[in-house]
């Protein structure tokens, strides 16, 4: 039995190719690789995170139109395996609905030419900083801290083809992973729901998802849904 505290950095759209390209050693940790999400017909954020949390493909249970309001009960997720946990802004569980509604509203306004990309980016970074504060405040106080950051996804959708911007995003996420690494020996899982691929200057979801572990589990192309049982067996039993 292997029981230890755990940290999960849930990084939306963190892409394995860019982690390699920018040589993000802290994000790579001791073991890293690609996840398998081929069982999903569309790489939808809420569906993928709900599936990660429950160990089941939740595609059929989460309608597109109401996905952002969808909420799992703790006992449906691996969070319940932990005596006390903190889930920060986790889609399908503790999503900060207002922040994300604002981001989506600005995204739409951008395409309607009613707001600038700079205004959109500044809201994304503001929300990111808030999650970062919540995350570092929680470290050391819970058996499990799971924090969600949508920086790579939200910035990437409008600017994935602009390498200056994406390198800053990856630098920021690499710094967070570095700070975790230097401050704790807890088992750390870095995981993304999907990757990202360019559409001109924009970015679209790809199947190139990413995982890494601070302590090697020697996984080989794990499915996103495999982590439910892996966490249960390797961390909680």
């Amino acid at each position: 039995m292997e029981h230890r505290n755990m940290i999960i950095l849930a990084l939306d759209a963190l892409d394995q190719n860019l982690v390699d390209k920018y040589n993000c050693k802290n994000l790579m940790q001791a073991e890293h690789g690609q996840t398998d999400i081929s069982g999903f017909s569309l790489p939808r954020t809420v569906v993928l995170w709900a599936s990660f949390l429950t160990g089941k493909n939740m595609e059929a249970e989460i309608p597109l139109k109401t996905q952002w309001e969808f909420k799992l009960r703790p006992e449906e997720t691996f969070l319940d395996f932990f005596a006390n946990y903190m889930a920060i802004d986790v889609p399908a569980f503790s999503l900060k609905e207002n922040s994300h509604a604002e981001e989506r509203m600005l995204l739409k306004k951008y395409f309607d030419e009613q707001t600038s990309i700079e205004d959109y980016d500044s809201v994304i970074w503001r929300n990111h900083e808030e999650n970062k504060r919540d995350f570092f405040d929680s470290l050391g106080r819970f058996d499990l801290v799971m924090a969600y950051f949508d920086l790579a996804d939200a910035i990437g959708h409008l600017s994935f083809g602009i390498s200056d911007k994406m390198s800053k995003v990856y630098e920021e996420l690499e710094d967070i992973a570095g700070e975790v690494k230097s401050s704790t020996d807890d088992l750390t899982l870095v995981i993304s729901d999907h990757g990202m691929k360019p559409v001109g200057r924009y970015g679209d979801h790809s199947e190139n998802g990413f995982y890494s572990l601070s302590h090697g589990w020697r996984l080989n192309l794990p499915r996103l849904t495999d982590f439910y049982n892996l966490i249960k067996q390797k961390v909680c039993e």
Partner: protein
Amino acid sequence: MQQREKSDRNVEDYLSSLERKSISIIREAKAQFRNMAVLWSTGKDSTATLWLCRKAFFGRIPFPVIHIDTSYKFPQIYEFRDRIAKEWNLDLIIAKNEEALQNGMSPEKGKLDCCTKLKTEALKSLIKEEGFDALILAIRRDEHGIRAKERYFSPRDEEFHWRYTDQPAELWDLYVRPSEDFSHMRVHPILHWTELDVWQYVRRENLPMNPLYLAKNGMRYRSLGCMPCTVPIPSNASSIEEITEELKTTTIPERSGRAQDKERAYMMQKLRSLGYM
């Protein structure tokens, strides 16, 4: 002089080979589908495609021609449409989302919503009403990167989703066969043409063209759409010959005058299909 004649002959051979392939795709589609139609915006690409359809069936297009009317198009588009429809004896269907227009839909309400309501939904309901199982569209691979993944025969579901990661290769002249899990097939007979090819073909065949393409006072439209969302580009090309010459050296993207360029429109659709908007 000899060199010039040789070069002209090469262009002729090249255009003829493009034309042959397009006609063969159109005929293949007609043989495969029982209820097909062709989309016609009245722009250069779709007008050239209509011409190819006429050639494929010896002068008369044996299926309906759909024009999606947002009611925000240039007057010259409506004039051109009505004149050519008459001259070419087209079975013209005009698709219009009257309900959305009555509810005040316009580009001021948001370009994304406007395009969705007045173009996509108008076409969706027409397909449903008429039961079309295939649509010919005049898209070209060189329009932008994402089009490079397109196929000549490209299935779409009821929501017009294109599963670009799950489509067979089209090797030699083997095109996708109709299967059960699609709503209609998109057929792209000029996918392999470039913008310059289209204009050279227009010139060779002496096709009628919307006058908005020709420069006036140093400006011309390079791509035609709705009036509030289309702007002209700086140009002095006031004839088809001058347009072909201009295209050989221009560095301005074809759809630079369109508010909703294809890449942007594609991304909007993707984000919508993922539930972001």
